């Protein structure tokens, strides 16, 4: 029995692709242009972490949260308020960056737990709406409250980073590799968590909350903790985001940003953690390069109108494949498997991901 047969070619292929992807990303600054590596790929990394927090909730707890953007926004505002010095807006406490990071992660996680406690008794579409309302309220809150931010937000956060990172504007490679490594750690952590008893309980709750409740599991508590964990992931994304972006303003977490993150998650696939980074890559590339696609200009799609393109892609993916690009990929593999490689063997229908 060869290795191919033992593991199955699909698994080998996916491992190979993942290896190539990680290798390319690891060599990113060497093989890609500076713009592609530092602007696009670094954004893919932090956006992927944020999307990963959304996908973790939707894939393993069955809750689609639109509050993840607010979570990384809150993290950004907390970091901006604690570490910066001598600015007009915000509290500019001027703490040590490491203290600021700890406070940021703690505050965001606690807010996530609280919001989880409020909304965890409402599942499904109610949960989606409550988190959406929270997201828009958080945006308005930071716009109104000038003590913390105000409309124009907090700038120059790049100058207050930990020593090993330096100023990301001057040393973009360090931020690139930090975001890259953190992405991998977040992915592994999520994968690990889903195999712990806690993660298995979450999946039980996703599939049948009533049964899990009658088995004695505290469903709202588990959901709240899962939401807190997702907020923790989002806070990491938020820290990377403000270092990458240099500033945070309410405009960064408005409704369109909320929907962008949802689009990222849906394009990649709401039921697979890897989809987070794939979706982020597709989204960021489209939003940066749509202007250079020939022919689009003739039908009225210009660089400013990339949201129409994104919207159409989003619509097509939702209509055709609820599992996103990864869902399509899996379907293709199965078709190939059935049609070419093992036509004679009658195979049971492949297990689908959970229906949305």
């Amino acid at each position: 029995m060869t290795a191919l047969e033992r593991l199955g070619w699909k698994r080998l292929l996916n491992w190979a692709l993942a290896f190539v992807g990680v290798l390319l990303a690891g060599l990113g600054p060497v093989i890609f242009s500076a713009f592609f590596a530092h602007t696009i790929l670094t954004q893919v990394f932090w956006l992927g972490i944020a999307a990963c927090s959304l996908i973790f909730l939707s894939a393993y707890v069955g809750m689609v949260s639109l509050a993840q953007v607010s979570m990384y926004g809150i993290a950004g505002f907390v970091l901006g308020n604690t570490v910066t010095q001598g600015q007009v807006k915000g509290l500019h406490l001027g703490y040590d960056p490491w203290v600021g990071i700890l406070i940021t992660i703690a505050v965001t996680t606690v807010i996530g737990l609280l919001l989880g406690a409020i909304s965890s008794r409402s599942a499904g579409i109610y949960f989606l709406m409550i988190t959406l309302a929270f997201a828009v309220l958080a945006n308005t809150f930071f716009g109104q409250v000038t003590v913390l931010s105000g409309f124009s937000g907090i700038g120059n956060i790049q100058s207050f980073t930990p020593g090993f990172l330096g100023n990301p504007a001057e040393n973009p490679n360090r931020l690139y590799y930090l975001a890259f490594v953190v992405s991998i750690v977040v992915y592994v952590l999520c994968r690990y968590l889903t195999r712990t008893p806690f993660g298995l309980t979450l999946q039980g709750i996703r599939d049948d909350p009533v049964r899990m409740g009658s088995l004695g599991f505290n469903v709202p508590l588990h959901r709240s903790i899962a939401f807190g964990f997702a907020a923790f992931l989002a806070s990491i994304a938020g820290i990377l985001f403000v270092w990458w972006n240099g500033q945070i303003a309410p405009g960064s977490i408005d409704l369109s940003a909320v929907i962008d993150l949802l689009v990222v998650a849906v394009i990649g696939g709401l039921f697979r953690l890897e989809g987070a980074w794939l979706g982020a890559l597709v989204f960021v590339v489209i939003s940066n390069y749509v202007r250079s696609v020939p022919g689009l200009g003739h039908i009225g799609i210009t660089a400013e109108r990339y949201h129409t393109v994104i919207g159409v892609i989003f619509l097509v993916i939702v209509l055709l494949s609820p599992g996103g690009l990864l869902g399509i990929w899996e379907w293709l593999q199965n078709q190939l498997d059935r049609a070419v490689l093992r036509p004679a063997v009658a195979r049971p229908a492949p297990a689908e991901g959970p229906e949305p």
Partner: protein
Amino acid sequence: MVTPPIALGRRARLEPSSLLRRAPAALVVAASVFVLVWVLFWAPKTNYGPAIDDPSDFFKTFLDSITFAGVLFVIASGFTLIFGLMRAVNMAHGSLYLLGGYIAFEIQQKLVGGSAGGFGLVGSQVSMWDWVVPAIVAFACMAVIGLVMQQGFLRWTQGQDLRQALITIAISIILADQMNKHWPLQETVTWPGRIDTFVSIGSVKYNGARLFMLGCAVVIGLALWAWLQKTKMGMIIRAGVDDRQMVSALGVNIQLAFAIAFLVGAGLAGFGGAMGGAQFNLAPGLDGQWLLNSLIVVIIGGMGSLGGAAIGATLYGFVSQFSAAYLPTTSDNCCTEYSIIFTFALLVAVLAARPHGLFGRPA
């Protein structure tokens, strides 16, 4: 007969937990009493001061609240109608509102522009029909768009509520971007001069247009109520809300009822756009704001309940207007920065007590 000891024990154990269960209710009552005392007798460092010293401004804020609640109700009732029957959350509701407003704006420009030359209209140029016709056209256009959305995308994804929400979000992204292209600047529908005047109520002069909006909301609310409660179609819709499959098994064409409910719900968003576009304004990004408003109203009131939408709109209207007027000012010139917190607190309080809203039932 001696009472069994178990019953005694259960009773004894119930005491503290029932007290605990009443704690949130007591908290809500205490908070309400505090707010009432604050607004009526205390209110230091606010724009108006306590209501007993300045009853006319209090009355104005009261009218502001209830008229704002009127617009909220018109828009949110469409949202809740669609959800109630189809369990479909129409995330494009805010976009339909904004597009309806823009269409009313364009029609009004065409109607009036012939005689007055177009650009910034003033109320005296606008007759009653120059508002009513655009509003009806906005209703009709949005009803058609809603119908297309329902037939084209939502009909065959029935029961997959998350997927439907995602589909409507995709539609709202496309609509928002295209509206941004055609109307990049702020626009305003103009109220007819006849109603945009000050009306005296007792000693208070109040904006007639806002009262007109309230009137519209009341008429629409009553019409919806009569339609749902007194007509055969309303009966089918109500039955469909309770048990869709049973109704269709009885030979009723439930798809027709769905289509009509979506038509009316989307149309109400367009009509609301004509009202809101005249009273407030129309600008890119307001679609999200009004989607949020509808969401808050129905989350408070309970999805799918018309009465819930009315109560939710009233609560939200009062909390948002009063917190803006009666919180201590945080800067020298005007206003408070913290009114948004009270909207959120209202939402949290309702959800903590009733996860499905005041009048909502689990799906």
